[in-house]
């Protein structure tokens, strides 16, 4: 991105940000995204801080869960909202500032060119992300797990930066309310035979994002939730 004022994407592109107690970070994230797209939706997932007010002030559409229901549920609500507003492309983006809004045009580009239905951001295709060593191994476990269970081959299974075509957003069912939705989305891509591709994105591991993020132990819980739900299908 060489330009100081990037050209904003079409208004049918919606960015959805699930946010739970992210008041310190969400303003900058919303402002950053608004430089690249016109519609930013923050789903305030039962925050006890000023997340909703801060997001609204920053210029986002705000949808509020009255009580916390988890990131998967918040993404689903944000997608439903965007679909009801006529979105043709829906991007999911993390609220804690770990993603770089400047990557947005590259992430939606394959969708706008009609090359695929889902774009998955990956932190492992270039060297811009400072992934801590333990996290790198846990994520490798996730990649192997996804390949075995869902039969889908990607380099980063748990990256919150993704983009969906309208058709993909309508087809994909997210039943996992909490963090296992990331595995579920990949499983759905395979099940619905959607065309997907990966685009390198930068993930910044700041003290804030590491503190707010998932511990590596949570991966075991994610596996359990995902398999339990898959068996019930």
């Amino acid at each position, binding site marked *: 991105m060489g330009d100081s004022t990037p050209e904003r994407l079409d208004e049918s592109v919606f960015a959805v940000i699930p946010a739970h107690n992210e008041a310190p970070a969400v303003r900058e994230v919303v402002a950053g995204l608004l430089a690249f797209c016109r519609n930013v939706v923050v*789903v305030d997932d*039962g925050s006890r801080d000023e997340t909703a007010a801060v997001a609204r002030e920053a210029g986002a*559409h*705000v*949808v*509020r*869960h*009255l*009580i916390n*229901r*988890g990131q998967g*549920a918040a993404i*689903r*609500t944000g997608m*439903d*909202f965007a679909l*009801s507003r006529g979105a043709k492309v829906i991007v999911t983006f993390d609220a804690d500032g770990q993603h770089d809004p400047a990557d947005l045009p590259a992430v939606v580009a394959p969708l706008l060119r009609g090359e695929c239905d889902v774009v998955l951001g990956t932190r492992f295709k270039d060297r811009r992300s400072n992934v801590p060593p333990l996290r790198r191994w846990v994520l490798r476990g996730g990649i192997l797990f996804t390949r075995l269970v869902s039969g889908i081959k990607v380099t980063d299974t748990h990256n919150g930066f993704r983009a969906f075509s309208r058709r993909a957003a309508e087809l994909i069912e997210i*039943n996992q*309310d909490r963090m296992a939705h990331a595995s579920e989305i990949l499983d759905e891509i395979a099940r619905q035979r959607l065309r997907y591709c990966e685009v390198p994105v930068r993930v910044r591991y700041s003290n804030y994002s590491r503190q707010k993020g998932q511990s590596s132990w949570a991966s075991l819980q994610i596996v359990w939730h995902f398999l339990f739900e898959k068996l019930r299908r």
Partner: protein
Amino acid sequence: MIIKVLLVSFFLFSLSRAVLRFRDGHINARELVGICLFWLAASVVVIWPAVTMLLANLLGVARGADAILYLTVAALCYLAFRTYIRIRDVEKELTELVRRLALFEAERSSRNKSSERP
């Protein structure tokens, strides 16, 4: 036999709670009868443990207390699984409710905003 006194008084306490809940209307007469039968049977077993031998012989277990223990563990595991699934279902319903409400509110507030404009 302090254990007998302790257990039987606990069973009687539970029984009295069930009667109170019946009076409040939280449980119906059939449920009250079921709960009473359960605690009375438990009291009988505690007071005359020999009766459990009937069950033990029937099941091919050496001791009556073991027979009761095995059956109880099995029943509790079943209940734990059932409760787990029940909670998952209730959580799903709760999520659906929260999501619908969020979308409804968002729609309503945007409609109000657009009607304010001249």
